[in-house]
């Protein structure tokens, strides 16, 4: 980011490749619509480019970009008054596609379904801390909440997720409860 701010525009592609997947995953779970998420990724990086000189060098980049993305999402929602869930042509709700190498297909799908059913505040807190990899403090900055509030949301979201995914806990091969 420092090189990009200093004028090295080749650094932009490195920045994009490093951050776009996590940004896109976050926006995809917010919008529940692939095209809108891609549009928002483009809008976010456009804003990052236009405001790169106002970036405070030394500040963490990912929370900054996620905060811009989140604001862009809510601005767009206010402008268009579009509901976050949109149906595809065959009437089903499109799910975010996952890249799965080590992940059990059923558990991944179940986890996505369970995340989509959580209250948005809990789902965002869990996504930022557990999936995107932000610290609690950074997630609190992005969400505009206190650290305590974020911890509480993550905890409550986890309780709900465990309840929903309980059957996977009982049948999961690495779980100690299945050991002889």
């Amino acid at each position, binding site marked *: 980011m420092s090189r990009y701010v200093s004028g090295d*525009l080749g650094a*932009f*592609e490195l920045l*994009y490749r490093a951050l*776009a*997947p*996590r940004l*896109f*995953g976050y926006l*995809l779970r917010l919008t529940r619509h692939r095209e809108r*998420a*891609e549009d928002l*990724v*483009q809008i976010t*990086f*456009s*804003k990052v*480019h*236009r*405001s790169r*000189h*106002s*970036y*405070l060098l*030394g*500040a963490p980049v990912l*929370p*900054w970009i996620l*905060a*811009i993305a989140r*604001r862009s999402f809510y601005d767009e929602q206010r402008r268009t008054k579009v509901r976050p869930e949109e149906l595809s042509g065959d009437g089903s709700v499109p799910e*975010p*596609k*996952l*890249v*799965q*190498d*080590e*992940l*059990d297909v059923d*558990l*991944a799908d179940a*986890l*996505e379904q369970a995340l989509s059913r959580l209250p948005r505040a809990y789902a965002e807190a869990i996504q930022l801390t*557990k*999936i*995107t990899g932000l610290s609690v403090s950074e997630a609190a*900055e*992005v969400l*505009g909440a*206190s650290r305590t509030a974020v911890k509480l949301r993550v905890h409550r979201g986890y309780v709900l997720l*465990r309840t929903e*995914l*309980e059957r*996977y*806990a009982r049948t*999961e091969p690495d*779980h*100690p*409860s299945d050991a002889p």
Partner: protein
Amino acid sequence: MNQPPFDPFDRGKVLHPPLPGDHVLSALRSELAHDLERNAQRRWMPSSRVGRAALSSILVVFFVLATAGEAWLRSPWVVLGFAAAYGMLLTGMLVAGAVPGRKHGLPRALRGGLLAVGGPLLLLSLWLSAETFLSLGEFVTAPYLHMATGCLAHSLITGGLATLGLLAIWRQTDPFSPHLTGGLLGLLGGAVGTLSVELGCANSEGLHLTLGHGMVVLALTCVGYWIGPKWMSP
């Protein structure tokens, strides 16, 4: 023995994020290339925030000079003192970390607290510094109301210039809490407005000080808070 609770996010079960389409990067590359051509010559403003703050403070000082009477011209140190005070306010804000994202910035709760108490505290201090007090019925009659309106207008213009300058200098720096930062910048600009009219007005009546000199702080804090998301967030 109690087993640890099932964690769907433990090692080996992380949800790998999907990738956006290649057309997104292609569109961004085009936009960047176009932006380079358009902005190649836009370097007439000083690049540092300190430089731009100095420019905007000169603008404020010129306005004060233009509206001052002869008394001010006989005491140039008052004007210099005003410019120095503006600079000190700006420095104080930088040091205090009004704009988040800095390594040692103020926490959100403290910034919110400053915003909540800053304006009322200033009004209270103006009220307590008053030497005479009129009743509301007396105050709303001319010439008292006319004098207060004049001071309020002067402080709004001075403070408004300062607030606009501060907002422009720190534009697009805060996507996290633009309302808070905009409000704090409005509070500081309002304080500049109060200071400018305090230096030039000898009236020490309570309602005149509170409404004519101090109301600008509340007004510009609200303006900054409202305009924050539009200016402070990229």
